[in-house]
């Protein structure tokens, strides 16, 4: 059917900030959708609060609004832009929930706006647990025994009937937020209570646990003609019981016979038809491993993380086609963009196997509960493609960038058998590695199956990997053995370890013997039709399909899986770099391992290699492509970390040279360089062992800031106050060595400033300077950044520009750089220089209209900044105020302390922009999900050092009519300043305590500051967690509190009595 002519403009709702459960995949989906609709000639209006995305680039839609995705702001945009329709199914759960809210508010009817894609009643039917269950009854599709509950008592009654374990699924929440498996009364009480809180309709489904069943997913699509297809099916290696986002997944299914496959396919199609979805849909099913019995688990009536994975796994662009379906086109009239010859109405045939492994943030959150269950905890994922299971799995393992090159963990020999059994039985993030260790110790696959319920097929494959370690060990330098080891995916590094060789010697030995990978195309059709798609993966086979072209090429290394500290911002820079390379006339080749991103959309680059970002895998591609050089500065630390090994193998690093990178990152050389440039930095030194560390810290004077060199996102960075603490830090937090020293700096308190700059070797362009709301000590990624700076004197601005210019030139930067400064006692100090693209590149690019990654790439390729037509020095300051507000995912991560510090904890960010700081902040807070009430109570519990400052804040709260709740100590301090407050007892007291206040929702805001050190057992930790569990904003920095207060002040009028007349009036 032809596309609809009765609609002209469409509002697309994005998914907002990156949080656990809703990540870069929606940038990919949204970008595809917007471009796809534009291609059809529609006027596309986009709203998304997340500036770090490609989709919010102004060329992606006709009108881009970076505004909070809230009823207030979306309604305003609808009134202003008057779209004919909205498309909410590509913006994740955020988009769907927004559509429902808009509908309920009546604005869609009032403005005559149609919802495209999935109709509202279908969304409700799929999302509302009760309606969904009824529909399944009607369709005769089995669902696990379950009950809808609105209270804990109802849940208890259900358990009386069914018994434990049961699964709790809150309605209308994302990534299983607030849900979980309960095995006893206490867990039931906890999980149901929090689940009901998180559900916007106070509704949970409690169901019989079918843990242990095979978990199978189908990605289905349907159009208005009722054509319906399955794009991909996937099988979770981890059986039912672990959120699919936290499961190791393979595509296509491996253990299903044709009958099982089609039985579940039929059900999936039946459901998408019954719901009347026009677009994409994800169906999750549980299949009994011992019969044909199955249950439907869940349906997502929209494009999802799984559909992004399915798109990358098959090549079939689901979001792009879903958008076209939404405007009336049908599958049988659209061409499959991969083959360019066949139609989109078909089901991709794979001739490889895809493995996905989630990337969890537990390396940053050591105190967090690492158990996996029905609530997703991963921040990102990697995908790998191979021609056998072992190869795909091992490639995925080394794509993770968690230090693993193999199914092998450090210090495994210290583990007891019991511990291993426990960690295989109860799934956690490292289960795969414990499983490998169990096999290595001779535990049978039948036993492991008993423990984990993982299918024997997969266990056999894992066993094959582990067994081959022995074969390798016993056959050093045996070519046939090596050939097979490579075939099943062993890394050179692993082989080297077993053979007593280093990685590069194995590489060379292999090359001598002609054992090198070939590249096969991902073509959706198992080679049945000729395809032109330049999307490749490496494997060990006979025929190479990736042919080097005559054009000179440049390789860009991507940033791998999304993790805290290395988010979608780096994918943004990568994509822009690719575009710039193409504009400069070169062939742009990208290497990346992350299926969620825009950069791994095959239509972005001239050639996409879906490969791990390790030296071995990247070198293979370089050997084949013989590029002009490799760009490493846009892929975050992932790519930067490969630079020295690449250069050691004779590869040309384009842009900032390895020597310059080292100059910026090696502490001693950096110090010398700064000295030479006469730029001050906080006193500091490097230590390679505990003894030195203590000495240095004492000579500098506490507090000191300690961190390992060469890290991103402030991993293992701490402020240390005593010798005791630094000893503890050196013993537990890092493994210091001469190659990996620890940096120890004086901790300066003051205003933190962040500057990004582009240098072409001669000229330096500074798009903007950002001022942080939180004082130094809070990681820059977790601080609210403001552009332009609001409180900087011209003198300081001049100094910053001067230092930045001299640093760029002095360090030999070619491309992008990012500098963190602190202004302390009226003096500007450099804290650190990152010789690469930073997190703020998209934020600043969007504000200043200087496409920084693009300009930098062209500078790298030889066009000066001036020739490109961009200013040198500080770019003209833009009108308005822009704030970048961090967004956290604490609700998903139990037992993580939410207090802000030098280690980054946020998963995403939003932008707020308006004409004043207060308005911009308001938008930023709203977009980040912080509720701002113009009246209510604030609960204050602050440390002694903060009491004076907190008192000032309290005064201002009182003036706008807030009442103050405070713990005894804080209350006393307030009392002394003449501020009355309601005293709330500390945890453990007899009367109502802090926890009751929080749980009862008596406080709208909590201000809590840390005494010192990191002792999560203390009250402060309980308070902060309780706040998260109850969805109340808890501010751990007085600067953030001040910012919020400014916003509330600007929203309200003061309630001050008239000043008493000085002169007595005679009445």
């Amino acid at each position, binding site marked *: 059917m032809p596309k609809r002519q009765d609609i002209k403009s469409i509002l697309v709702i994005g998914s907002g900030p990156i949080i656990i459960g809703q990540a870069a995949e929606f940038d990919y989906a949204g970008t595809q959708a917007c471009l796809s609709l534009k291609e059809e000639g529609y006027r596309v209006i986009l709203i998304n609060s997340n500036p770090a995305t490609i989709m919010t680039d102004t060329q992606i839609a006709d009108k881009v609004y970076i505004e909070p995705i809230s009823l207030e702001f979306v309604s305003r945009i609808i009134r202003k832009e008057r779209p004919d329709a909205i498309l909410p199914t590509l913006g994740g759960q955020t988009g769907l929930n927004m559509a429902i809210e808009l509908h309920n508010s009546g604005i869609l009817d009032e403005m005559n706006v149609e919802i495209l894609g999935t109709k509202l009643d279908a969304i409700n039917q799929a999302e509302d647990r009760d309606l969904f269950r009824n529909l399944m009854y009607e369709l005769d599709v089995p669902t696990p025994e379950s009950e809808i509950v609105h209270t804990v008592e109802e849940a208890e009654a259900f358990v009386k009937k069914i018994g434990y374990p049961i699964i709790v699924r809150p309605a209308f929440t994302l990534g299983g937020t607030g849900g979980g498996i309960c095995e006893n009364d206490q867990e039931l009480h906890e999980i149901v209570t929090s689940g009901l809180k998180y559900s916007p309709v106070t509704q949970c489904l409690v169901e019989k646990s079918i843990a242990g069943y095979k978990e199978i997913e189908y990605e289905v699509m349907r159009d208005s*003609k*009722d*054509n319906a*297809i399955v794009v991909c099916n996937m099988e979770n290696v981890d059986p039912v019981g672990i959120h699919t986002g936290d499961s190791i997944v393979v595509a*296509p*299914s*491996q*253990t*299903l*016979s*044709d*009958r099982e*496959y*089609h039985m579940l*396919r*039929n059900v999936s199609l039946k459901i998408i038809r019954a719901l009347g979805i026009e677009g994409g849909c994800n169906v999750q099913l549980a299949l009994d*491993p*011992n*019969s044909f019995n199955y249950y439907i688990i869940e349906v997502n009536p929209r494009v999802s993380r799984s559909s992004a994975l399915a798109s990358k796994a098959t090549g079939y662009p689901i979001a792009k086609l879903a958008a076209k379906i939404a405007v009336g086109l049908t*599958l*049988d009239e659209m061409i499959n963009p991969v083959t360019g*010859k*066949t*139609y989109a*109405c*078909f*089901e*991709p*045939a*794979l*001739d*490889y*196997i895809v493995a996905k492994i989630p990337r969890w943030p537990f390396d940053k959150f050591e105190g967090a509960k690492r158990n996996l269950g029905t609530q997703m905890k991963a921040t990102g994922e990697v995908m790998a493609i191979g*021609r*056998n*299971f072992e190869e795909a799995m091992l490639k995925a393992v080394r794509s993770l960038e968690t230090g693993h090159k193999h199914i092998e963990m450090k210090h495994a020999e210290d583990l007891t058998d019991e511990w291993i059994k426990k960690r295989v039985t109860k799934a956690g993030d490292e289960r795969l590695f414990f499983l490998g260790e169990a096999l290595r110790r001779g535990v049978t696959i039948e036993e492991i199956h008993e423990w984990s319920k993982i*299918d*024997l*097929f997969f266990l*056999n494959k894992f066993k094959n990997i582990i067994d081959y370690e022995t074969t390798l060990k016993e056959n050093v330098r045996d070519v046939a053995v090596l050939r097979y080891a490579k075939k099943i995916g062993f890394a050179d590094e692993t082989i080297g370890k077993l053979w007593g060789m280093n990685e590069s010697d194995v590489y060379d030995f292999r090359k001598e013997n002609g054992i090198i990978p070939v590249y*096969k195309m991902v073509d959706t*059709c*198992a*080679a*049945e*039709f*000729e395809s032109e798609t330049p999307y490749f993966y490496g494997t060990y*086979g*006979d*025929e190479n*399909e990736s042919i080097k072209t005559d054009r000179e090429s440049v390789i860009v290394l991507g940033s791998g899986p999304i993790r805290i500290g290395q988010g979608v911002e780096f994918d943004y820079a990568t994509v822009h770099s690719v575009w710039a390379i193409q504009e400069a006339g070169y062939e742009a080749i990208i290497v990346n391992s992350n299926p969620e991103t825009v950069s791994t959309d095959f239509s972005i680059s001239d050639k996409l290699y879906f490969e791990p970002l390790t030296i071995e895998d990247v070198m293979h591609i370089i050997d084949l492509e013989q590029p002009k050089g490799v760009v490493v500065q846009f892929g975050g630390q992932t790519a930067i970390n490969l630079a020295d090994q690449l250069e050691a193998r004779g590869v040309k690093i384009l842009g900032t040279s390895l020597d310059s990178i080292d100059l910026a990152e090696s502490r001693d050389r950096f110090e010398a360089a700064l000295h030479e440039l006469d730029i001050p930095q906080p006193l500091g030194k490097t230590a390679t062992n505990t003894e030195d560390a203590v000495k240095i810290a004492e000579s500098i004077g506490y507090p000191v800031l300690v961190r390992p060199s060469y890290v991103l996102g402030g991993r293992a960075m701490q402020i240390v106050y005593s010798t005791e603490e630094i000893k503890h830090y050196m013993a537990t937090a890092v493994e210091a060595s001469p190659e990996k020293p620890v940096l120890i700096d004086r901790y300066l308190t003051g205003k933190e400033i962040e500057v990004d700059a582009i240098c072409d070797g001669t000229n330096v362009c500074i798009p903007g300077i950002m001022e942080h709301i939180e004082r130094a000590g809070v990681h820059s990624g977790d601080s609210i950044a403001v552009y332009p700076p609001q409180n900087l004197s011209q003198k300081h601005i001049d100094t910053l520009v001067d230092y930045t210019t001299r640093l760029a030139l002095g360090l030999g930067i070619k491309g992008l750089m990012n500098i963190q400064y602190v202004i302390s006692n009226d003096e500007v100090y450099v804290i650190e220089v990152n010789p690469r693209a930073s997190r703020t590149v998209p934020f600043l690019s969007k504000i200043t209209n200087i496409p920084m990654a693009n300009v930098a790439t062209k500078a790298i390729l030889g066009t000066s900044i001036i020739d490109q037509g961009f200013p040198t020095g500080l770019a003209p300051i833009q009108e308005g105020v822009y704030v970048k507000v961090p967004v956290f995912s604490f609700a998903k991560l139990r037992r993580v302390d939410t207090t802000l510090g030098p280690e980054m904890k946020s998963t995403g960010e939003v932008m707020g922009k308006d004409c004043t700081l207060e308005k911009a902040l308001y938008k930023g807070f709203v977009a980040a999900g912080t509720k701002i009430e113009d009246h209510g109570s604030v609960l204050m519990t602050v440390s002694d050092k903060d009491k004076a400052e907190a008192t000032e804040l309290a005064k201002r709260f009182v003036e706008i009519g807030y009442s103050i709740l405070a713990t005894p100590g804080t209350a006393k301090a307030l009392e002394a300043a003449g501020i009355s407050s309601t005293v709330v007892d500390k945890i453990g007291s007899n009367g109502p305590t802090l926890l009751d206040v929080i749980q009862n929702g008596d406080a709208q805001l909590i201000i809590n500051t840390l005494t010192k050190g990191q002792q999560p057992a203390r009250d402060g930790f309980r308070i902060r967690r309780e706040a998260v569990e109850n969805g109340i904003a808890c501010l751990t920095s007085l600067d953030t509190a001040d910012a919020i207060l400014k916003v509330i002040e600007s929203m309200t009028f003061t309630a001050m009595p008239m000043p008493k007349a000085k002169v007595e009036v005679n009445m």
Partner: protein
Amino acid sequence: MTTRKLILETGEVFEGQAFGSDKGSDGEVVFTTGMTGYQETLSDPSFCGQIVTMTYPLIGNYGINRDDFETISPAIKGFVVHELAKTPSNFRNEGTVDDYFKMKDIPGIEGIDTRKLTRLIRNEGSVKGYLTATNEEVNVEEVIERLKSTTFPINQVEQVSTKSAYPSPGRGQRVVLMDFGMKHGILRELNNRDCDVVVVPYNTTVEEILAYKPDGIMLSNGPGDPLDVPEAIETVKNLIGKVPLFGICLGHQLFALASGAQTFKLKFGHRGANHPVKDLRTDRTELTSQNHGYAVDMDSLAATDLEVTHVALNDGTCEGLRHKTAPAFTVQYHPEASPGPEDPNHLFDEFIELMKNNTREEQQQHA
């Protein structure tokens, strides 16, 4: 290690590991893209005389089970896979593909670059090939010469058709099923609808067929070139209009030929479980299971009493026909699925309806 080679008439040699029978085997090398359903595929009689390559690289994962055969004696000449599972896993698993092939004395090869082979077939068209015996030392040149000069037997239908008629009873309509190499799935679908089926050999005469007093006739799938079974074309010609008729795959081609149309050989055929077919009457597309190397020539239909009901979405070839006046329709694909999607399963219901209506009409005429 037991090695085995696959030698193609075009000169390529693939070396891998042997499984199944130790003997050598000639055949036409084809590929199929289905990701599941290898058991149904290897036992599909339409593959008679062919060496079948699975494009999906991991085969045998769920083993061989009791239920999923499409015939009792597989007719394929060899099986080519990238990796064969040694330790299958599924609750119905009763043994490995290797064991099964040993039992049935069929050779297989694994460990070769099946994608390279597939691309070759795609570019060159179906080719003749020889699977060597286990560890056989051969003169490759000689084998190639031999392959080039060999013409494979054209009596595949005779090879796979039942030798004598047998019933598969039910209480519903009587269907005579002409077995040209029938997949069990067809019989299963008819029996599921309570048909009283009589399966007859491919060369059964019109008189013999009509003597069963059928309510309908089912023309089964089968291997090879439809022109190689002229006697069946003749039979079908004389059945059209007498009894409602439904044909699948080879049965579809025979029906076309019997009605005066032509057939031709496709470059490398349609084999897989993801072939979209558009129903011209409803304008809807269904995913179908297909396995055919020949197709009905669209241009040749003008002079016949047939109309096209279905076309392949991708290459526009003929996928379904209906007689303009007689109660008869056929499809090129496999509505019985196994392996593959069950989207077109409703065609069997349409056949049942057609038989019912026909009986009703006849009764009215007699009344």
